[in-house]
């Protein structure tokens, strides 16, 4: 009887494994068929809600083939008022939040609405918001004029879309002014929704772990290295380290004091 039970259990376990494998294979076939049928692979996180006080999960999905720390680019273009503009995002003290929006994208509606509603969303301190639309020949300046409030900095530049390899609108990129690198990017339905991503990008760059060593410290280290090397003292040179017995003596003294 016991032997029969053991055999049945083993058979059941094997069947479960086989079933799981079949289901997995079936799912892969369905996914592949969906792609072949012209359906896009799911690249965005499903809509989500969190209870009050619980931070939202990161919404920015990694985009295939994109370098997370790609170079940032300055933006050259024209404004709706005809200003010819060159905006710096590289080599400056502030971060730049580039919102790539369009006059004819449904997904941009939430962004335009929040831009026109003062107080609905604020940029992190020390950062600058720049709305980037495509150049006038690829856009509708008259519709953009209706959508974009006067006090919002909007630059029309198809070159910027190409430089930042924007996959589509809406798309938000956070450019780190000091390093000249992109430090966050993603899409969403409104500034409020992507604000978590933006805030995280900005906060990360100010985290003590990301702090750069002061230039004076690096200069001093270089000077000391140069002097030591000139004197024939290289890395691992014994004279740089206290003898083992001295280290042990110091440890004993510290123990005694404790």
């Amino acid at each position, binding site marked *: 009887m016991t032997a029969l039970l053991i055999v049945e259990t083993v058979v059941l376990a094997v069947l479960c494994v086989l079933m799981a494998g079949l289901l997995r294979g079936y799912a892969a076939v369905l996914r592949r068929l969906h792609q072949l049928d012209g359906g896009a692979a799911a690249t965005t996180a499903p809509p989500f809600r969190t209870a009050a006080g619980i931070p939202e999960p990161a919404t920015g999905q990694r985009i295939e083939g994109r370098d997370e720390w790609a170079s940032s680019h300055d933006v050259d273009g*024209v*404004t709706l008022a*005809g200003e010819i*503009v*060159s905006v*710096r995002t590289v080599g400056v003290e502030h971060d730049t939040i580039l919102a790539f929006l369009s006059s004819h994208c449904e997904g941009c509606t939430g962004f335009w609405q929040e831009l026109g509603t003062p107080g609905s969303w604020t940029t992190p301190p020390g950062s600058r918001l720049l709305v980037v639309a495509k150049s006038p020949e690829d856009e509708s300046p008259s519709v953009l004029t209706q959508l974009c409030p006067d006090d919002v900095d*909007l630059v029309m530049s198809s070159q910027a879309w190409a430089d930042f390899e924007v996959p589509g609108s809406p798309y938000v990129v956070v450019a780190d002014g000091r390093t000249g690198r992109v430090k966050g990017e993603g899409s969403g339905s409104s500034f409020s929704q992507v604000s978590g991503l933006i805030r995280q990008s900005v906060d990360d760059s100010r985290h003590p772990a990301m702090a750069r060593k002061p230039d004076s410290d690096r200069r001093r280290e270089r000077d000391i290295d140069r002097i030591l090397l000139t004197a024939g003292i290289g890395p691992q040179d014994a004279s740089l380290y206290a003898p083992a017995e001295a280290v042990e003596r110091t440890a004993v003294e510290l123990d005694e004091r404790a």
Partner: protein
Amino acid sequence: MSAPAGKRLTGHGLSVGLPPRWEGRIYRRVVAEAGAQPGRLQAAGWPGELSHPVLHLANFALPPGRGDFGTGAVERMGPDNLFVSLLEFGPDCLGSALYAPAGIPRIRPGQFNPNGMQRRVAGQAGFQHFFTEANRPFCLYVVIGSHRQAVPLAKQVNDVLEQIEVSHAG
């Protein structure tokens, strides 16, 4: 009239090479048409006004909606910041005594004056000069973020003024 790639800004017969950290904008004020209803894009000029090119340069983030003399921008300046405005005036000014000096000037640190501002801002100092370049009358208005730092800031201003080119009026 275009926003060129690279760090040279060109338009309305003005061209400037932008040093690192500097950004710039060239524009003519949008002039309201007679009887026009206020729209989203507010015109800064008055009906019938003949607007002329304005070049703004700064080593900080220039905000939208600035006044010709930097209102809205100079208030955001830190002590290391600089704001340069080059404003063209109408041809009727040509030949007048005010615009008699020829060429884009270079500024000595002592020429910056806290009272030279359009509106006084604590710590800042301004400089204004009228001149004619390429048969076009201009006003150069410069604000430095710190009067105490006039010596190094004047050098930076002169470096960028060196990069400005004015085409002859057509």
